[in-house]
């Protein structure tokens, strides 16, 4: 999750799309693994047919085994893809004057965005939400923190985020 958050932060995209970025990374990994899975199943079935086997149970067993292998591959590739993106994203960009310390904890960016999205979906901002958000905000890059807080303010102004205890939302 941390690495995914790092990828999301470095992408420089709108924080609003945190969940979308996560879904995109997973979807890409799933697509690659699925294509490879189909190719393996086709190859294996073709070999069975060429060998003259017509036993449905044997074919079913083969397909099942291939699916199990593919699932394991899918999980590994998903983790690997996310990790690679995260490692690339964590590299500081000297052109922007970044250093390793200024990066902060990018996982909190994704968590904070999810917290905000969830709260907006129910139009409620509870004291527990506020405390969790403060924790997330306390450890994330300044630019991302500013974007999330401005986004919060905008939702407050639109009436989409209503503090349940009539206290400031931050």
């Amino acid at each position: 999750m941390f690495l995914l958050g790092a990828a999301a932060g470095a992408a420089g995209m709108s924080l609003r799309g945190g969940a979308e970025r996560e879904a995109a990374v997973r979807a890409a990994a799933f697509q690659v693994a699925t294509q490879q899975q189909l190719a393996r199943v086709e190859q294996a079935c073709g070999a069975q047919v060429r060998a003259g086997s017509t036993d449905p149970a044997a074919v079913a067993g083969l397909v099942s085994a291939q699916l199990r292998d593919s699932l394991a591959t899918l999980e590994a590739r998903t983790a690997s893809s996310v990790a690679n993106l995260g490692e690339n994203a964590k590299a500081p960009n000297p052109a922007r004057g970044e250093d390793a310390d200024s990066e902060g904890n990018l996982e909190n960016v994704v968590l904070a965005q999810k917290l905000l999205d969830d709260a907006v979906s129910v139009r409620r901002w509870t004291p527990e939400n506020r405390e969790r958000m403060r924790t997330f905000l306390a450890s994330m890059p300044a630019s991302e923190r500013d974007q999330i807080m401005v986004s919060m303010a905008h939702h407050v102004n639109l009436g989409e985020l209503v503090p349940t205890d009539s206290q400031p939302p931050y």
Partner: protein
Amino acid sequence: MKSMNRFMAAGALVGALVLVAGVVKAGGTYYAPVSYSGTATAGTASGTLTTARNSSDSNQWILCSVTGSTTGNSVQCTAQDAAGTFRSCVSSAASLVQTALGMTSYGHLSFTWSSGACTQIKVTNGSRFLP
């Protein structure tokens, strides 16, 4: 003797009230409830802190808070009017953070936002605003 003391005390009290009333009148004390102009996307919130604090509806408040961190300072201003409607803005602009630091426990505060970002913060302290 007792009645004389009571008479003098009452006279002193009336005198004090008259004096205070005169000061208030002469000073032109300014009260303003929390109010908004513009829209939810771009507008301004304003009000005097004393008025909000002492409002009978118990809903009103207006404030700005400044947060300092190792990665920079930011200011968050929020208000709630008598109807319970919130308005808020956030900025890490040094000039706005500095302005917010000029607030006292009374005075007049206004902040202007655009899509949640503060574009202006105005702090007014002066003799017209009683603590």
